[in-house]
């Protein structure tokens, strides 16, 4: 069903004896398989990590969207979900993990602390004011903590972004 919804006017369906075939670009086929099987590197440090666990558990299951394997190692994951506050002592670790991921890689900043420092923006001497000062971020999910529905909406937006990726004809790496 997801496959049929992803068809746009560039793809053509032919009826042939025995069934039907779909004619489309190679980018469309690769993008649709990449966006529906993302493996996450769950970098949960604080309270947002609990909401992320709830998104993966019974009521709001994220396996229906293809995120079946929470791969804990950066060498085999596609998406890095930063859930929690980042402080100065942890910043080199974040950068090192990002550089260990293989391309194509995506980053989601979950929660106010990862977007801009959150409730610790003032009067704290160790906070990093937003994780986009260290690594490039694709999707921002606001909230303190964001509800599981917000996180799932963020993943759906990331899937839409991946569908527009034109890596064979230039554009993003």
């Amino acid at each position, binding site marked *: 069903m997801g496959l049929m919804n992803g068809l746009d006017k560039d793809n053509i369906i032919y009826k042939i004896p025995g069934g039907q075939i779909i004619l489309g670009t190679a980018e469309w086929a690769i993008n649709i398989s990449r966006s529906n099987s993302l493996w996450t590197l*769950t970098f949960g440090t*604080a309270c947002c990590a609990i909401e992320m666990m*709830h998104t993966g*558990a*019974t009521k709001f299951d994220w396996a229906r969207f293809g995120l079946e394997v929470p791969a804990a190692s950066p060498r085999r994951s596609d998406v890095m979900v930063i859930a929690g506050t980042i402080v100065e*002592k942890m910043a080199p*670790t974040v950068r090192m*993990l990002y550089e260990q991921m293989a391309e194509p890689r995506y980053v989601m900043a979950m929660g106010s602390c990862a977007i801009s420092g959150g409730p610790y923006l*003032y009067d704290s001497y160790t906070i990093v004011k937003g994780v986009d000062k260290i690594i490039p971020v694709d999707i921002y999910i606001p909230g303190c*903590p964001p509800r599981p529905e917000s996180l799932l909406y963020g993943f759906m937006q990331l899937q839409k972004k991946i569908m527009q990726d034109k890596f064979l004809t230039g554009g993003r790496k």
Partner: protein
Amino acid sequence: METKMPIEIQSRDSDEYILNMGPQHPSTHGVLRLMLKMDGEVVKDVVPYLGYMHRGMEKMFENKKYEQIIPYTDRTDYLSVIPNNWVYCMAVEKLMGIQVPERAQYLRVIMAEINRIMSHLLWYASFGMDVGALTPIWYAFKEREELMSLMESASGARFLHNYFRFGGFKADIPKGFIDGVKKLLARIDDDVDEYEALLINNVILTNRTKGVAPISREKAIEYGLSGPSIRGSNTAIDVRKDEPYGVYPKFNFEIPVGKNGDTWDRCKVRMDEMRQSAAIIRQAIDALPAGDVMAKIPKIIKPAPGEVYTRVEGPRGDIGLYLVSDGTEKPYRIKMRKPSFSNISAIKELIVGYKVADVVAILGSLDVIIPEIDR
């Protein structure tokens, strides 16, 4: 500033090596870094590194007004939200001489015990995941989701409730809350029996945890342990019985203890605590009086100059708050005494001599939350 590494390998010919369980690890419950000196699979020495979540909260509180600090107290330990709010509100109420009305006191007890059940359920899920059992997560989270909907109807937020205020609550509980609690009480005993039979009495877990890392009563008191970590060693210490607060003296409950002080006993104590919490909630619901839920407090919160130290029993142990006030709108000094800080300082005593697969089980049985150590 160059600091010497505190772990060294004695000689080049031995089989020893240093293993780093880094800050990003699926089983260390947050950002804890352990440097293990190993000989084959046996651990010889351990040095923990902390500070990967240090946000400087105690310095931050000196520039905020008293009522602006309440949301920050839930974010130190995000699983025992209600006891953290309670210990702070109790400290300010003691300095200002505010009396909380009776109905609010009963409601505070009900919320605290529901929170204890939620925290122990999350411990159950993550402990199972650490030792390799992937089924308890689904059971525990299903239960937790229903409790979260209940608390959301009362406080407005799923789990960082920010619910208590100085003098009681801002608004009374909504209409369907008591029915929701009664539905929970009707099934909680059978559910806890099922969860215990699934993981704690499982033969694989008993073989992995019985006899592993025992600690005696004297050593535990010296290291400052509290909560289920010390109750596993046949020591009945609980703030609700030693120094009762609120309306706890009116309830009839026991303190579960373990016999040997090893990892399995610490796990069993937590399952029994869930049953005792259900007993307390049952008694509180039956005796809930009518009345208003908020005392009369002045518009500007300015406690009298002085110091106070209050204690509360959280799911992890004994939470304390030391407040020094100088008569202005902002506190002079706040010191938070958190149970995981003392619980994890005993780690060298517990881990040395066991295998690396036991390290994860022992850390899981201590139930530490790293952001509350670093504050």
